[in-house]
């Protein structure tokens, strides 16, 4: 069974990573990084701050709810999460399943590429931020910039603004942003896993995209009406923001462990739940 599972995973990896959909990823990374870079560059000038770094672009991007949730999460889901539903619609799933020997193998072969894609997607976003940052005038220095540290300069026309959690003065910004990317990858993977499980029950290829937009949209609407602090505990898009865990940036920060637990439970629960559902559904 292991042999078939590995062979299936290899095929699904090839299908996913040689897909032209990654062109959309490239575009979105570029657009998101440019928007984030413009935002901090403008602020740096107005606040009379010193040079900003390419890592500031990434940190700012990762805490922009619109860019992360609407643009990046939706693009990731469209790239990596509709394959089970699409294969069942086209009945390619049948061709694969009769070879896999069992439904579990097929399911695992769908999960693994999605998990890898979440890491690759975040790596791509980090790469785009570095490229766009360099092109836009940012430095490659791994020391925290004045912008990152929330420095206040006299004579500035704007008050200080924290785009993300200020790092320690001796922090390595590259390491910090790699960590942030991995955190986002976990969050994206967990949400993607939930959507994959959803498509086991409802195998419609348009559903993942709609679900990704829906998660963010519904959260936005609910957040207008619900101002209680408990809502931040159940809001998945809010948990994606790194700054949501920082007492410096928000009044009522979420413990980081609670988010790690939330994503892990969602990821593992959806994987097991999807497997259980797949056992019973007509493919």
């Amino acid at each position, binding site marked *: 069974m292991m042999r078939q599972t590995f062979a299936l995973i290899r095929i699904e990896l090839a299908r996913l990573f040689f897909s032209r959909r990654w062109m959309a990823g490239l575009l979105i990374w570029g657009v998101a990084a440019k928007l984030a870079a413009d935002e901090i560059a403008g602020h740096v000038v107005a606040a009379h701050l010193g040079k900003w770094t390419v890592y500031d672009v990434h940190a700012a991007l990762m805490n922009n709810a619109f860019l992360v949730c609407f643009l990046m999460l939706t693009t990731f889901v469209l790239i990596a999460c509709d394959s089970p539903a699409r294969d069942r619609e086209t*009945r390619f799933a049948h*061709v694969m399943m009769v*070879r896999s020997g069992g439904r579990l193998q097929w399911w695992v072969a769908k999960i693994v590429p999605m998990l890898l894609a979440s890491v690759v997607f975040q790596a791509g976003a980090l790469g785009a931020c570095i490229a766009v940052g360099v092109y836009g005038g940012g430095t490659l220095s791994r020391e925290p910039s004045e912008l990152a540290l929330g420095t206040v300069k006299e004579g500035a026309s704007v008050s200080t603004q924290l785009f993300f959690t200020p790092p320690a003065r001796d922090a390595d910004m590259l390491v910090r942003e790699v960590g942030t990317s991995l955190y986002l990858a976990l969050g994206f993977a967990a949400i993607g896993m939930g959507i994959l499980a959803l498509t086991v029950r409802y195998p419609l290829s348009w559903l993942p995209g709609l679900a990704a937009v829906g998660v963010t949209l519904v959260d936005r609407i609910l957040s207008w009406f619900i101002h209680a602090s408990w809502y931040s505990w159940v809001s998945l898009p809010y948990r994606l923001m790194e700054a949501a865990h920082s007492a410096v940036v928000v009044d009522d920060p979420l413990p980081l462990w609670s988010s790690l637990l939330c994503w892990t439970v969602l990821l593992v629960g959806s994987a097991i739940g999807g497997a259980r559902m797949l*056992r019973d559904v*007509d493919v």
Partner: protein
Amino acid sequence: MNETIFDTTTSVPERSKVAGPLIDVRGVGKIYGSTTVLEDVAMTVRPGEVVGLVGPNGAGKTTLIRILSGMSRPSRGEGTVLGRDITATTGRVPFMGLMVERPMFIETLNARRNLELLFSIRGVVDGSTACDVLERVGLDPSERKAVRTYSLGMRQRLSLAQAIGERPALVVLDEPTNGLDPLGIVEMRGLVRELADRDGMGVLLTSHLLAEVEAVCDRVVLMHGGRARRVYAPGDADSRSTMVLEVAEPSDIERAACITALEVIGREGPLRMRVKVHECVPDVIRALVGAGVGIEAIYRDGNGLERAYMEAVGE
């Protein structure tokens, strides 16, 4: 009982070594909500046998194929496919060749690469098999074009190649002649017979082309309204004894009807009738000539399945 999600205790799905029938199911039914789409279907497919499934759209053919291939569980019924219980909840899928309607592949790769990847999953054939089987279905193994540029006919051939390449004991072909040109249909017919006669595979196929089904199948299950209405065997004695007799004059019809060696079962115009012959054909011809019947032609009825189909669907 503490049931596991999936049975993973069995290792690599081996090519079936089932001694008896490859497919042996009884009373199979499928209900979606309050709609019954399949009811009380029984079917047997043995090694070396080609069995057809025909019926109008919505007759339940595809549902039955899904159940037999392990993609769907029946609401009722029992039986085995390649020794696997069709009601099992283990999530295991039998090792068969499956050709689906409107086949999709890894669109950016060529045919050969697609087959190599698909065959790598089971790992039961070597690398040269992809080329061999592509040649066998009439595709060029050296073709470098991506599958996305293929016509429906080429996709059908490729789909057949992936189904038979690993030489499974059982092959299920859903509408294999879809999109094929006349030559392709003839080639497909020959290939299907070869799979059964030379390779000893059991073949279950569906098609709307009744003449093709009649030409290639040993038995045909006629389905309508989710039920198997009748099993027609093109080669059995009853089918073989039905002939068409064409005569020179209308009065010959009356003379022919008086001969005991045959029985008129239907008239088709003033000079043609369908008859069931009770003796060997030369004896029947001698009797007709002796009775003064002007024979223009006598031949085996090639539309037996069509008639059976019309009777089965009630038209």
